[in-house]
């Protein structure tokens, strides 16, 4: 009996550091960029760093559990475009019938979020019920959402002056941190809590680790998957709202560049693409890695022709350092 007694877990610092290399990457990058351009850490840029990343952050929140499932969603950016143009179209539609801009904003937001959730559910159902791999299902939906966005508004639309005040909150600061980022991080923390401390969340990790085992163990695999995709739609729509108030305008192509950026941010944070492991907290770090690279390159003023080369190399270095190598047996695909 005594030989099987479990030892009280001591904090294994080596393991903790190995599991959190991505934080080291962030610190390293901050140091390097500050040395190269002292203004990198001036107050205005810190404010930029701590508010610009909000849309990316919120979308990473939706994508992380999808990657934990071992799935992927390539339609995220296009879903975001749809929500972006839809929200402004709704606001414009209500402009004449409802007098309070705030009410218009809230109503439009609610409808948009509902649309995002609905979009996520449709994708989730097709993936789960028809067994279409999420990669290809979402790839098809990328095209579909692109068309839907263009059908809603074929041109970018500006937030009319009468409704501009609804975008003012975006600039509110609490200390150096912008309100949007605080909202995004709150969403992440809440979602993180759900993922780690509810039966649903624990189920997600089990499904990602071994779907058959999870199913036999009585976990509602299909339902949970659809919920995760619905949440992703929700986050995409929320991110779309952020982009709307940030740019004070909508555009049917606005989300395009986000899809791969979001996935790379989540992976750079340390969530694995094969599923079963990962964390939303890591994704916060991942988003900062991507944001700092982009910000730092603008700060340092890299030659325009070299920008993409430098961006690619830094991302590669960041991921190569932060990738989780603690599990030796893991196969990397």
């Amino acid at each position, binding site marked *: 009996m005594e030989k099987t007694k479990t030892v009280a877990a001591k904090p294994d610092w080596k393991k903790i550091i190995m599991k959190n290399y991505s934080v080291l990457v962030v610190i390293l990058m901050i140091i390097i960029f500050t040395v190269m351009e002292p203004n990198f850490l*001036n107050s205005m840029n810190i*404010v*930029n760093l701590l508010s610009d990343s909000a849309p990316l952050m919120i979308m990473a929140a939706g994508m992380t559990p999808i990657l934990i499932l071992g799935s992927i969603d390539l339609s995220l950016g296009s879903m975001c475009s749809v929500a972006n143009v839809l929200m402004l179209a709704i606001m414009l539609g209500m402009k004449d019938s409802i007098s309070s801009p705030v009410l218009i904003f809230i109503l439009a937001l609610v409808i948009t979020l509902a649309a995002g959730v609905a979009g996520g559910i449709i994708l989730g159902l097709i993936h789960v019920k028809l067994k279409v791999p999420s990669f290809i299902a979402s790839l098809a939906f990328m095209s579909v959402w692109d068309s839907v966005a263009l059908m809603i508004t074929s041109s*970018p639309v*500006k937030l009319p002056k009468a409704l501009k005040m609804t975008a003012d909150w975006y600039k509110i600061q609490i200390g150096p941190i912008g309100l949007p980022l605080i909202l995004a991080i709150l969403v992440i923390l809440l979602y993180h809590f759900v993922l780690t401390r509810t039966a649903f969340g624990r189920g997600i990790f089990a499904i990602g680790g071994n779907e058959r085992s999870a199913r036999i163990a009585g976990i509602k695999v299909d339902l949970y998957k659809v919920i995760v995709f619905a949440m992703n739609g929700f986050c995409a729509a929320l991110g779309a709202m952020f982009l709307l108030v940030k*740019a*004070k305008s909508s555009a049917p192509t606005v989300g*395009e560049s986000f899809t791969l950026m979001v996935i790379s941010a989540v992976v750079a944070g340390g969530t694995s693409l094969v599923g079963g492991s990962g964390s939303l907290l890591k994704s916060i770090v991942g988003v900062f890695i991507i944001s700092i690279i982009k910000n730092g390159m603008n700060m340092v003023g890299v030659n325009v022709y070299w920008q993409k080369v430098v961006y690619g190399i830094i991302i590669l270095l960041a991921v190569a350092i932060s990738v989780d190598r603690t599990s030796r047996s893991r196969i990397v695909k």
Partner: protein
Amino acid sequence: MKLRKITAITLAGAMAAATLGMTAMAADTDWKSFKIDPAQIPQEKLDTTISVACSIRGLENPYINTIKVGMEMFCEYLDSIGQKYEMQVLDSGGSNDTEINNMKQFAAKANGNAIAYSDPNESAICTSLVEAMAESGGYIGTAWNREEEDTVEDYNPNWVIHTSPDNVANGKAIASALFDQMGGKGQILVVEGMLGNTANNDRVKGLEEALAEYPDIEVAAQDTANWATADALTLVETWLNQYPDVGGIWCANDNMATGAMQALENAGLLGKVGVVGIDANNDVVDAIKAGNATATVSSNGYLQGGYTLAICYAAWAGLIDPEELPLEYREFATPATVITSENVDEYIASYIDATPEFDFSEIFWCKAD
């Protein structure tokens, strides 16, 4: 002054746009001949490192490269007057969000000692870019895309100027050139740029205006090639099987015109079908000379990039006060040239065979009269 002669063939549309800004007909002709006098710039300004940037939407398009070159020419001028500076290009890759972030970060870096040329990705984000710069105290000049309701006076003094070669007019001008060449009747193919993009929508709007004036021209097919050469090639290649008797191809930019011409060449129709585009890419200009293309429009990116920064610089250096400038000197059209077989030799001689030279001290020389 060959340059003068070419710019003389400016667009009626562009001029109309210019007159829009002329709310008060201030006859203050002095501004036109305003010259930067380096001696008036305080030494402390010259010793301050000013951050110079142009914000662009990507590097796929050679026209955009001319803006960058324009900035570099202007920076050579800064060298010549002993101004310290740092130069960079902000590439948005066609993303609104990235362009706004870039501008905010650039503004943060420079702490107010900044001037920027910006080609907003969409008109809807123009003011967001200006706002980023205004908050830091830097100076910005925008080009092309801006919502009609916005005016530079909303962000005094930081939004120094907005110049606008008129996309609607450009689209219409090349369409008219094409239709004239076709004898006013026949089928055309329309190759659009990226859907949902302001520049594309405006150019197509210009095409539609021209179509209204030429009732015998019929659009056989219309689709997007996403501003890309390869996509245009595929598109036109397919269409040519369907409409072998087509008389002309209207493309929303020159990259796509290149693809259209390649498709024509493969089909043995090069030179027999008119092709028009916008941007004055070298290969399209050469094709006009060879008789393989009909027309393109030069918006003169060198001039746009260089002079916009020059005016912003004058504002930063305190030589001009934007608030005192009459509106017609803050919102105006830069010269755009329709290049056809008539003036192509001249254009080649001054812009392709020779690098154009500009005197950036005459900051308002860039204003189309």
